[in-house]
């Protein structure tokens, strides 16, 4: 892949890497069978056509848009903050072996803590609000970014650090001009793992606490036995995840066009 390739070509190439659309056939066949076989008013397996009505109702009342906006906001801010925190801590730990040793067990314990377990804790301290939702998303989604950044920062080649010294870079210049670009591919890899985590965690907190968002909308639909809407929202959420993953891999390809190709798959 050439570094001079124009963006549209890069986008087209990333899209060409998606699997053949023929592969959607089993899914489509299953949905058609479901539509034909399911009783129209089934409370458990409502036919796909009723999923659409469920969603349309929710959209007409405005609830869907409000919930979508709230969830999207948490996901976006959560990802940004998790990236900032993960990269900063990761670089600090990566460049200082002493800090890595000192913080090791503590970080290991925090990382092993399943995010749902800290939800009740966060509720106690922060109460039921947007801040609490964001805190949980950031704390839990930051780990893959932190770990990827730290291990890449530890692997920056000693020769490159010699180059920095030979050119008499200050510590800040060293981090900005040498370490940060070196870890960039790994940071993006970490963000790619953190992205679906942000979505999951946002929904999780909304389902657990009923704070406004798509998760809360789903659990409310389930409580009211609006089964069509439950399935419809599930499909929407899945579609959203798929689009955002594909979108991010395009962004990744574009950013990494300057780096040697082997780093992209890493």
């Amino acid at each position, binding site marked *: 892949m050439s570094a001079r390739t124009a963006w549209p070509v890069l986008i087209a190439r990333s899209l060409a890497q998606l699997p053949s659309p023929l592969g959607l056939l089993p899914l489509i066949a299953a949905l058609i069978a479901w539509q034909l076989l399911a009783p129209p008013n089934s409370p458990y397996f409502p036919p796909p056509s009723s999923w659409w009505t469920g969603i349309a109702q929710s959209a007409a009342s405005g609830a869907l848009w409000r919930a979508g906006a709230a969830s999207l906001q948490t996901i976006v801010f959560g990802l940004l903050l998790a990236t900032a925190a993960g990269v900063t801590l990761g670089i600090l730990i990566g460049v200082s072996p002493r800090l890595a040793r000192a913080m090791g067990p503590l970080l290991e314990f925090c990382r092993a803590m399943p995010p749902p377990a800290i939800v009740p804790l966060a509720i106690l301290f922060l109460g039921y609000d947007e801040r609490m939702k964001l805190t949980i998303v950031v704390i839990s989604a930051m780990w893959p970014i932190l770990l990827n950044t730290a291990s890449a920062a530890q692997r920056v080649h000693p020769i490159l650090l010699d180059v920095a010294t030979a050119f008499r870079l200050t510590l800040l210049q060293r981090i900005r001009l040498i370490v940060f670009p070196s870890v960039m591919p790994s940071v993006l890899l970490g963000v790619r793992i953190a992205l679906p985590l942000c979505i999951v965690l946002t929904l999780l907190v909304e389902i657990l606490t009923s704070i406004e968002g798509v998760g809360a909308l789903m659990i409310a639909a389930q409580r009211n036995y609006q089964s069509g809407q439950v399935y419809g929202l599930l499909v929407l959420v899945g579609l959203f995840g798929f689009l955002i993953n594909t979108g991010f891999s395009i962004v990744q390809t574009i950013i990494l066009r*300057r780096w040697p190709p082997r780093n992209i798959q890493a």
Partner: protein
Amino acid sequence: MAEPIFECRSASVALAFGGQARPIVSDIGLSVHEAEFLSIVGPSGTGKTTLLRMLGGLLRPTSGEIRMRGEVLTGPPDGVVIVFQDYGNALLQWRTVAANVAFGIERHLPRKECDERVAAVLELVGLSKRASDYPWQLSGGMQQRVQIARALALRPAVLLMDEPFAALDAMTKAGLQDELLRLRDQTGTSFVFITHDIEEAVYLGDRVAVLKGSPGRIDNIVDITLPSPRDQVTTRQLPEFLAYRYDLHQAIGHG
């Protein structure tokens, strides 16, 4: 004889291994004059890289001192630049060729002057056409030329080279050797060139220092009086060339 511009007086380096200080190079005395090409030849394990890192100010000598134009070094000095052996790691892979060459000067020069100087050194090493490519898109020989250009952009008085051609094939290596001599003539830069290849050391050098033993010591410095300009075919066939080669082999102890 004129004052040397770069000088190393009975300098030693010891590095810590498992809590113990182990001497790597010991009692090194060297001097480099303006526009001189000094080769240092030595087998592996004699501390060639340590010596070069010390000369470049990346390692402080445990005893002795290094002077640049009479000033004792305390860190990487102005006017001395290192070219590393593994260009793959020494270049910033995410910067274009031009941006790599600008790396040493971009923080100290105005934009316009920086661009001009980058264009000039790229012209000098014959890479003008690849200025906007990335290092990983170039061959090994071209990447090493980028590193040389990056060093030259700083207009150094002394260029320190650590086995710069060890990873390259014979043809590329020969081409780059002649290019170095041409650059020396055009820019008046002095070279300290470390290698394990005796023929390369003789072909390039005005003098060849032999590094030997563990810890490494300078065993012998040979003046090379071969006609200039040197030529890959005829110079290497001269009886004097073969005699130097024989003597240095003897000195290193390969018989």
